[in-house]
């Protein structure tokens, strides 16, 4: 049991990061904090993929006679794309927050909802 827990320590940490992100995302009313939570949530997934590719005792995947075991490079490559997507999402989110701030003069979700209902 202990071995199972210790052996998967990277996954446990990833789950913690993911849950912190998701919790921030759900519980905060501040739009900036929501975006921060979203970014953490995405980062956790990126970490998850990178962990997947790691092979025990494996080395960087550059073919050389000295090494026999290589880590899987594919997940890391995939994550390059995912990071780009994540950055784009966050950037777009920031842009929206700026526009929301301009037109509502607030970035608190409950205040914005109230303003919308009054209108």
């Amino acid at each position, binding site marked *: 049991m202990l071995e199972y827990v210790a052996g998967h320590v990277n996954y446990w940490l990833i789950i913690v990061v993911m849950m912190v992100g998701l919790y921030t995302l759900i519980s905060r009313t501040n739009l900036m904090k*929501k975006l921060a939570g*979203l970014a953490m949530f995405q980062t956790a997934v990126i970490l998850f993929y990178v962990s997947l590719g790691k092979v025990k005792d494996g080395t960087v995947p550059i073919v050389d006679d000295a090494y026999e075991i290589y880590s899987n490079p594919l997940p890391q490559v995939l994550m390059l794309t995912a990071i780009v997507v994540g950055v784009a999402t966050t950037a777009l989110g920031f842009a*929206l927050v700026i526009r929301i701030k301009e037109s509502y003069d607030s970035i608190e979700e409950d205040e914005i909802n109230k303003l919308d209902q009054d209108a």
Partner: protein
Amino acid sequence: MTEQLTILLVVIPLLSAPITAIFKNHLLTWAITLSVSIVCFAISGVILAEVIDGKHVIYELGGWRPPWGIEYKIDSLNAFIALIVSGIAVVSGIFSFRSAPSEIDTTQSGLFYAAFQLCLLGLLGIALTGDIFNLFVFLEISSLSSYALISMGRKRQALTASFAYLILGTIGATFFLIGVGFLYAASGSLNIADIAERFSSFEDMQLVVTAFIFILLGIALKAAIFPLHSWLPNAYGFAPSTVSIFLSATATKVSIYVLLRVLFDLYPIAYWQELLIPQLLLVLGCVGVIYGSVRAWQQVEIKRLLAFSSVAQIGYIVIGIALLTETGLTAAVLHLFNHAIIKATLFIGAGILVYRANSTKLSDLRGFGASMPWTFFAMAFAGLSLIGVPGTVGFVTKWYLLEAAIQQSKWIVVGAIVIGSVFAIAYVWKIVEALYFNSKRKIHIQHVKSGDINIPSASKSMGLALWLGAIACLYFGLFTNIPFNAANAVAKALLGM
């Protein structure tokens, strides 16, 4: 030759979008967008004609062999979806000629059309690719551009709607990504066909179920399947008219397509039948139909009403899928097509009303039917299609859907379908009544009294787009051969018949 065409569907908008973004001239950017859409539509047509009798067109990106490289494998379903998406792009392109300048600052039109083309690119990419990670990337391309497009709506609620969609959409996409990761961990592959082929070798792993649930949740969010639809009404309700038309007719449809691929091609049917997924989807579909219809009936704004109606219509499609029979699947795929036409037509009508009256509230639109009878007539006709009155496209799908439910003696499903339709009468009639009956007070159109010469009348391009849609509603309701054969071929292929 056709192989090369497939990649062009993605490459053309990919190249033209940044070019469009440079310009600020509305006419020029509009012309580029429309021509790109038309070219894509033509290519999709050629491809569909090629694959409709069961052939496959395969394109390997960069010449890499699958499963290592990314592969585009086109069968009738891919081509059908691509045709719907590009066809709707053409119609909304025609519509936007007058609508976009009235709703979007002209200095931004280059960016607007660039985002539109990117969205088209993303949706077409999803429809074509055979690689599940590539699918995720296209999903995000289309989603990101649609967040941007929605936020361009004139009211400030568009911003919050877009933000809410961004949060939920990203959660959905990330769920999908997690699922793909688990599946990759189990199978070591990202190629859909490859995974499906070797499925039995790793099907016992716990990972595979987890992957399935994550993928399913992610798609359900993107497809706005009840109860994960909360982002949809505001997003479609506050988006610029052109965007409402395009997204309502395509975005959720493409997500449903992904659902079909995952359920029928990626995972074996028997596998998820054991997980009681068909029953779950059936219940969600039925509840979604009734919930969406009732909520649509309660709305007082035409675009939100139509958006809630979309939730209900997605429910019909989900029911068709969950019935797991040839008739049911045919109905579902056919409804992808039919609902795209109907909803596009109705949103075009709503767009014309916005253009003329500067309002989407039904109470502000009283008596508009008298001053614009042709628009009113086309909208009423599309509304009747939504109800499923015979002689229209909506009827054809409802018929097959009911037939599929009756074949399996699922009477509760039959009940849900018909009760949903009765509510559809109620909400469509809200629009008809509002437009048809005169109001006592003078209507103010853009702060000008009705009947004043300063009010822009609906332009020819808008009328053309509207009537293209309305005529399609009638034509494909009477002469169903083309969509039915395509949908039936798809259903047979998915069920492996």
